[in-house]
């Protein structure tokens, strides 16, 4: 009751003031603060039309509304549930650190559930990006200016054009200058003057820019009546020549891209197979649970990420040793508990480990539920390295490629230079002789299996960044892993590496022609034929041990 009356008292003067101010100003201009208030209240209305209107109003207010617009685009603008005021919230460990959208004053940290987000649709996002671009054209940071220009690339209204023209005169940064020129030239392509158009095409054909290619393509199209959209035949021929030039470059870049795709697919295959190359290749154990050991690695990543939700990057790096330990431990348990009783009986091993894989899958289902778990990707692993408009390499694939090579080199060093490696090689070559020399073969078996399993766990960390973390993760990779190991030559790590990359690249070059389904089949057929010819794979082991 009391609180109510206070509120009432507070509201009354406010209303009076509003009436008063309207009365005073009449048809004069309303001060920008109240305009801002007005726009913000529209923003909070439910309908998208209201929000669109609000955004346009904010745009008219110029640079002062930039923080609000940016927050809106980034999804950081909220309505406070307690008093329906508009706040900007920044995510931190405990909730949102909020500040008033209107005044910018700090309001402390609140629970995530105490606010509702202002949602956007695609149309609004496009509009916002354009407005923000216009407002940021004179920002201090050249990178911000560059993205602002890019956001305006497809805008052809005169306002944008004059803004860009004005900027071009004073712009110092070369990249930004370049970008502005491209946008202006694109506009020139629609000019009524034939010479300007030809000149624009001529200048633009050296650019690696998708918008240019799009525009040239569109010029050569025919409209519904069958007439060319570009009526002038001379310009059409200039455009055609320019397009051919651009397409040639596009061709080269897309082959580079395909090679990269192939390498990165190969890296995933190698990562998945390299643990198997040890357990299957060196020890001769057909481990059908190999995929599930990868799955355990991926779930370890998930658990660690749950433990430290605000340090995505660190959690991924920490997951690598953790996943190694857990998968290695499970691997050793499997070896000690089951496989060691079955050495020399490959069929039984196959069946027993297949059983283990089902047990592992179902236990993960019981513990974590059958639903996929969401593993977030840290900022530095999302997006792509933009070399130019035609060629970009995605970061997550790039890191996985590097990671794969690191793991491979490390493993090679372990096998070559450590005592464990020496013992592993000795046992693999001749078990009885190694035993006679005093090598504890049983212990070495367990350690080797542990090493192979641990590597599978590490592969799981990498997979968690590109695919689903769910109970079926392992199944998807087990066939591919065996394929790579057999193709590369059993018992040879280099063989696994080469085989993985060859299969990856072959797959990616086939895919555009045959489609993903057929590409996979063709690769399988190729391997079957290859194994007929060379049953020991690409790099067969030599020597007496291999013959026996």
């Amino acid at each position, binding site marked *: 009751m009391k609180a109510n009356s206070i509120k009432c008292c507070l509201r009354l003067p406010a209303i009076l003031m509003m009436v008063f101010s309207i009365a005073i100003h009449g048809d004069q201009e309303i001060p920008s603060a109240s305009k801002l208030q007005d726009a913000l209240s529209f923003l909070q209305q439910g309908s*998208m039309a209201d929000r669109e209107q609000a955004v346009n109003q904010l745009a008219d207010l110029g640079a002062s509304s930039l923080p609000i617009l940016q927050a809106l685009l980034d*999804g950081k603008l909220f309505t406070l549930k307690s008093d329906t005021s508009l706040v900007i919230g920044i995510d931190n460990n405990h909730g949102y650190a909020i500040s008033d959208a209107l005044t910018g004053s700090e309001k402390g940290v609140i629970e995530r559930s105490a606010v509702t*987000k202002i*949602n*956007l*649709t*695609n149309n609004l*996002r*496009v509009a916002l*990006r354009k407005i923000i671009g216009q407002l940021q054209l004179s920002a201090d940071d050249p990178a911000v200016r560059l993205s602002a220009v890019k956001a305006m690339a497809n805008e052809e209204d005169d306002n944008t054009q004059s803004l860009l023209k004005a900027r071009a005169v004073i712009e110092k940064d070369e990249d930004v200058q370049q970008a502005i020129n491209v946008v202006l030239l694109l506009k020139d392509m629609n000019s009524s003057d034939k010479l300007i158009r030809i000149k624009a095409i001529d200048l633009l054909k050296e650019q690696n820019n*998708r918008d240019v*290619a*799009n*525009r040239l*393509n*569109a010029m050569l*199209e025919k409209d519904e009546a069958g007439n060319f959209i570009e009526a002038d035949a001379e310009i059409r021929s200039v455009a055609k020549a320019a397009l051919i030039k651009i397409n040639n470059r596009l061709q080269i870049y*897309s082959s580079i*891209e*395909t090679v990269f*795709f192939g390498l*990165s*697919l190969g890296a*995933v295959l190698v990562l998945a197979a390299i643990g198997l190359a040890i357990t299957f290749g060196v020890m001769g154990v057909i481990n059908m649970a190999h995929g599930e050991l990868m799955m355990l690695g991926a779930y370890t990543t998930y658990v660690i990420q749950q433990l430290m939700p605000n340090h995505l990057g660190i959690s991924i790096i920490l997951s690598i040793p953790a996943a190694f330990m857990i998968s290695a431990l499970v691997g050793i348990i499997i070896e000690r508990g089951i496989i060691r009783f079955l050495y020399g009986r490959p069929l039984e091993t196959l069946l027993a480990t297949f059983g283990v894989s089902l047990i592992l899958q*179902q236990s993960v*289902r019981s513990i974590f*539920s*059958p*639903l*996929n*778990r*969401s*593993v*977030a*990707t840290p900022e530095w692993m*999302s*997006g*792509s390295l*933009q070399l130019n408009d035609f060629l*970009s390499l*995605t*970061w*997550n*694939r790039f890191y996985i490629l590097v990671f794969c090579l690191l793991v491979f080199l490390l493993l090679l060093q372990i096998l070559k230079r450590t005592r464990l490696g020496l013992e592993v090689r000795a046992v693999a070559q001749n078990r009885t002789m190694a035993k006679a020399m005093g090598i504890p073969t049983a212990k070495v078996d367990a350690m080797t299996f542990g090493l192979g399993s641990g590597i599978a766990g590490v592969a799981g960390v990498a997979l968690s960044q*590109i*695919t*689903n973390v*769910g*109970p*079926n993760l392992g199944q*998807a990779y087990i066939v591919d892993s065996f394929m790579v190991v057999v193709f590369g030559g059993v018992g040879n790590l280099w063989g696994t590496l080469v085989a993985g990359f060859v299969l990856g690249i072959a*797959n*990616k070059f086939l*895919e*555009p022609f045959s*489609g*993903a*389904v057929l590409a*996979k089949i063709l690769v399988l057929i190729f391997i079957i034929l290859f194994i007929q010819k060379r049953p020991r794979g690409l790099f067969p082991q030599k020597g007496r041990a291999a013959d026996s």
Partner: protein
Amino acid sequence: MNRYSTKLRALGVACTMAALVFGTTNVQAEDTIKVGVLHSLSGTMAISETTLKDTMLMLIDEQNKKGGLLGKKLEAVVVDPASNWPLFAEKARELLTKDKVSAIFGCWTSVSRKSVLPVIEELNGLLFYPVQYEGEESSKNVFYTGAAPNQQAIPAVDYLMNDLKVKRWVLAGTDYVYPRTTNKILEAYLKSKGVDKKDIMINYTPFGHSDWQSIVADVKKFGSAGKKTAVVSTINGDANIPFYKELGNQGVSAESIPVIAFSVGEEELSGMDTKPLVGHLAAWNYFMSIDSTKNSAFIDKWHEYTKNPKRVTNDPMEATYIGFNMWVKAVEKAGTTDPKAVQDAIIGVDFPNLTGGTSKMLPNHHISKPVFIGEIQDDGQFMTVWQTNKLVDGDAWSDFLPESKPIIADWTSPISCGNYNTKTKKCSGQVFK
């Protein structure tokens, strides 16, 4: 006589403890109505189907609290066909012959439904199928409470064409019957709207495909021909996450090339990192975010039943809810659970759906539903950007494929046929093709 034989049977098996347990359930079975729940609880499809099993258990629990059905309690018989298609048929047979269930609620993939179909027709059971599917089917024994293509795919394409002015189309799907048939219908539909063949790109990928690099690069190239491009995705469950991740990484945003999905719902989104998905679209007949009293009551009940305030609801759950309640209404109307009587009684039965309308069981065993298109938000929910202004009737046989155009399904007399050819005036048997 009947009771005597039961007693005898109970006596006969009473010698061992284990058998005694079975015996008592047999005795109990006399005063309960059994309902079969045929959803995979293990294997690939467990990800989607487990939720529907829980939904069924909740609905049955609730009905029992209201006093059951025809004065009897309902009893759920849950079996696990383990994502193994032939096992679906075996389990369905087991449910109908051994457990003598009055109706089965189940299946998710079309291939599992197709494998159950002959069993259910032979033994004259009832199957309520709650998932959107490719159409081109209408069985006397199956009730399709999910969307037919004209209740999901066609309105979605209309939205893209009219509201987003899309001119170039990528139809991407997983390589099996639902995407193939849907894309066939969509291709025919697009061509009928004057879309050129070279403006349509069709792409299929294997189940669980995880390496989308070159396909996304192709989509990007296809989309840079100077015309607005959209992807219509019938990609199934698991393969979606790497697909959207790759789209995000290669810089394909929802603003430049929107993807509209028919198999991505709240449940799937809860297992995804939603950052790269924001703004992409999905078409369904229900969204968890839709504001209606029925919906919020349903969500509250679901949270209470699962004891998890974060569990999401989705479209197939709503379809299960509608299907179950229509069955209950039909049984009450017929006064018996006899499949034949229920089949006749259920046609024309209506029940309020969760989004504010009233769905009705049509003579072709499909139901009427509203269609919603939503944009994915970063909290894993959808924001409705478009909806049909009235309920759309499910059409079993697509009007856009020349071979199924003259075919209609009508299970009321005098036609009483799932694939009646209006031209030849003939019924070509239970299952077409």
